[in-house]
């Protein structure tokens, strides 16, 4: 349990998450962005929000690399799984 690090401003992270959520909903329903661009923008926004939660709330920023790896290693596997299923459609 390492507590020596500088504590992040949790309320500020909450503010970021809230603003990003509002932007997401607004982009999805109020904007006239073409559909494929909209999907890319929304996915990027969701990944940014997920990273904010993982890095600051789950304290990955302050953990050792060997612990971070436990969380990072499944991500390429997850990407392979999704991409492999997407290629089903292409071929």
């Amino acid at each position, binding site marked *: 349990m390492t507590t020596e690090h500088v504590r992040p401003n*949790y309320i500020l992270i909450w503010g970021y998450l809230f603003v990003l959520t509002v932007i997401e909903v607004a982009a999805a329903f109020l904007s006239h962005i073409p559909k494929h661009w909209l999907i890319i923008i929304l996915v990027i926004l969701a990944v940014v929000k997920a990273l904010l939660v993982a890095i600051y709330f789950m304290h990955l920023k302050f953990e050792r690399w060997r612990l971070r790896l*436990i969380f990072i290693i499944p991500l390429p596997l997850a990407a392979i799984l999704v991409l492999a*299923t997407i290629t089903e459609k292409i071929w």
Partner: protein
Amino acid sequence: MTHATATANMMHPPAPAEPGSGVYSNKLGMWIFLASDVMFFTALIGSYIILRFGMREPWAAPGAVLNVPLTGINTFLLICSSVSMVKAYAAIVDGKKYFLRPVPGKLLRDGGLKFWMLVTIICGAMFVGVQVVEYFKLVQHGLTPAGFREGSHFAEVALADPAKYGAATAGLFGSTFFTMTGFHGFHVTCGVVSMLYLYFTKVLPEKYSPQDYRGIETIGLYWHFVDLVWIILFTIVYLI
């Protein structure tokens, strides 16, 4: 370090770190579980993507069937509960076990572990409650895992505007929607039950201290992960 001192260290908080990983075993176990949960949700999301984008017929437009404002509020609730969870963690690291305490010269009282854990539990329970209401409304209007129920409201409007409501893909829409949000709701329910258990057995009896707060940190990791999954699900199920 002799064997005797090593044993003595094992007996006392802070929790001993596992050799190799450098963290205590509860936390390591939770991280490994979360890694497996990443794959679990990826399987659900991956099959959703192939089912949805492999279809020639249009999928229901965002907001046509699902109530996005209600779920937007729900997303906000879950984000709030994640923040209150991390505030609970910060409170016990600082040794604040109390509920609320007045701060001289400040209007707002200072929340301790008991306060922030209660806020987290209430927000989590409200999330599940809103999801149950959402399910009831959807089934009432005719969305079931098998598609639009015959003679229901959705079946009628889908007949009038098949493209907007995704009439041809309603069965896939219903089954993927209920599977993904249902499994996520199950995770939230498990989290709320676990937190309630901890609240009455450990938090209220003040068994956590700045020297040992393993339970709070471990359930916190789980809770933030559930929030993280919802952030992804909200985007791909409700907004896209």
